[in-house]
């Protein structure tokens, strides 16, 4: 039986590979994935090992502890309509956005002039656009199948099948909706500096030597990353998650807290990437790493400290004690500062080790 399955899988793989020959876009994606797998750095490999390890632990718990599998199945069955709706929403959004972006990309692609028959090009496009939805269905089928092995011949198995049907149906329906809605306009992102506040000077003086401008760089990067669309997309789920009956005061404080934490996350990631870029740009200048880090990060660290204090104040407004609020605020600021410092050191180390 095992040998038959292996043979069938091999035959399917060979058949798919043959079919890929006539589909340049899919073939390119396949080859890129293969190349990535070959050249993946050790760091990425450890990341993958961690990810698969975590999934393995979850699956192991579900398989070993039958009661955990049963309660998870019962929870999904109770919430199957909600899960199906969420699956449909995500799938519709993903398919619709991928349709817009991939079609714009295909028109400019290096493969655009190849003589591919229209029918093949069409199903190739469908496969690429629905890729994430199909992937989700595949992952769900595997996960549900494994749980099903544990709760087989039980009432839970019918609940599990119902839940799987509902969620998969939701995803498929969402993908169809993604094709039914009109094609959204492809996003042409403006330069990040559009969102950076800048003081206008009528008659600027001649340039004066100074490293002070470096301090503004991470903060500007934060503003550039917090595009209005990103902010809107972040706020809507927060508002939807507010329990019914919440007062406007509470909503304001929650939004404020989310904004502070979001800004801190953006500032931390911006500081880390800016550190890396600055070592690349300023490497040939007579500037020590310590001086560069001081000018680059001082302002960002002051902003992070202020962010921690504002978060503490908002928590106090929400009803936490002064001690608890300060503890969380300080923890947030210290953790962010440590990540920034670590990212900066890592950037410096990588810049100096290039070629070694």
């Amino acid at each position, binding site marked *: 039986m095992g040998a038959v399955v292996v043979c069938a899988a091999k035959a399917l793989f060979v058949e798919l590979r043959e079919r890929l020959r006539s589909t340049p876009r899919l073939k390119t994606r396949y080859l890129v994935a293969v190349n990535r797998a070959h050249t993946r750095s050790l760091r990425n490999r450890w990341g993958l090992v961690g990810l698969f390890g975590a999934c393995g632990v979850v699956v192991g718990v579900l398989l070993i502890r039958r009661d955990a599998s049963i309660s998870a199945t019962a929870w999904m069955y109770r919430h199957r309509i909600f899960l199906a709706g969420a699956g449909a929403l995500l799938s519709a959004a993903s398919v619709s956005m991928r349709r817009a972006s991939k079609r714009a990309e295909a028109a400019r692609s290096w493969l655009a002039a190849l003589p591919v028959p229209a029918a093949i090009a069409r199903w190739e496009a469908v496969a690429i656009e629905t890729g994430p939805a199909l992937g989700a269905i595949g992952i769900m089928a595997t996960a549900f199948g494994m749980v099903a092995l544990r709760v087989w011949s039980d009432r839970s198995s019918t609940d599990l099948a119902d839940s799987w049907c509902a969620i998969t149906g939701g995803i498929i329906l969402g993908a169809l909706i993604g094709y039914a809605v009109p094609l959204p306009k492809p996003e042409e992102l403006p330069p990040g500096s559009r969102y*950076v506040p800048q003081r206008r000077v009528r008659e600027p003086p001649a340039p004066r030597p100074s490293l002070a401008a470096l301090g503004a760089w991470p903060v500007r990067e934060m503003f550039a990353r917090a595009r209005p669309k990103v902010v809107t997309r972040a706020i809507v789920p927060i508002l939807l998650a507010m329990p019914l009956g919440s007062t406007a005061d509470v909503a304001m404080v929650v939004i404020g807290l989310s904004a502070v934490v979001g800004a801190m996350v953006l500032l931390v990631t911006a500081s880390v990437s800016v550190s890396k870029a600055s070592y690349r740009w300023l490497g040939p200048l*007579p*500037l020590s790493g310590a001086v560069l880090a001081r000018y680059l990060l001082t302002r960002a660290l002051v902003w992070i400290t202020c962010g921690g204090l504002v978060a503490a104040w908002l928590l106090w407004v929400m009803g936490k004690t002064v001690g608890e609020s300060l503890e969380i605020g300080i923890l947030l600021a210290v953790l962010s500062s440590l990540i920034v410092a670590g990212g900066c050191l890592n950037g410096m180390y990588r810049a100096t080790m290039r*070629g070694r």
Partner: protein
Amino acid sequence: MSEWDVSSDDERAVSERPLEIRGLRAGYGSRVVIDGVSLSIEPGEWFVLMGPNGCGKSTVLDCVVSRLAPAGGDIHVAGYSMFTDAMNAKSQLGYGSAPESLPNLLTARQCLEVHAGAKGLDAVDADLLDLADELKFLPYLESFVDTLSLGTRQKLSVLLCLVGEPKLIVLDEAFNGLDPASALIVKRHLRYRLERHGAGLLLATHSLDIVEHYADRAALLMDGQLKREWTRAEIQGLTSEGSGLEESLAQAISG
């Protein structure tokens, strides 16, 4: 006495030269790209490094400006070792980085200020501002780098390279994206800098026009080694011959 031990006369010559490279070896991981390159640039000399794609021109430049740690050899900039006295060596160096590595969210003025600040200057040199004016760059001083066109970024890159009257100017394909008028202004200004300040220029390019009209010396880098060198007189001889520089270079590359 080892290969790299130098006598006091040689030491003096080294200190006067904008650039002295001896036995440079470099690569990426286990891949060796440069294997035993030695070259020197005299004050006021325009040195062009040529070679086929992927031969290691940019790798040599990266080693000179300390963006890449070499596996062996020695680099002196204006007499300072890039390995034992990097700060002094870098103070004498001007490098025109690729336009895409400029910081998008700083303004052009701030880029100039940061470069001048890092070199410990009291003011940005007037020569440089004159060049910026000639290149019609001054209206862009308050613009963010990410709003500048490729050519304008290239101008900024050249301007940054010249901050602080460097003894060694290192440029990698610096005329890409520049309009002909701006390219001519930059070339003339570079020639003026070499003659006035006695700086040396190391330029990696494929442009034979530059070799023909501006280079004092040119070298061909192939398979990680300098295969051939041409002096000014040889270049002029080749350009006056029927076969020309292009033909000669093609012959040298094909071996």
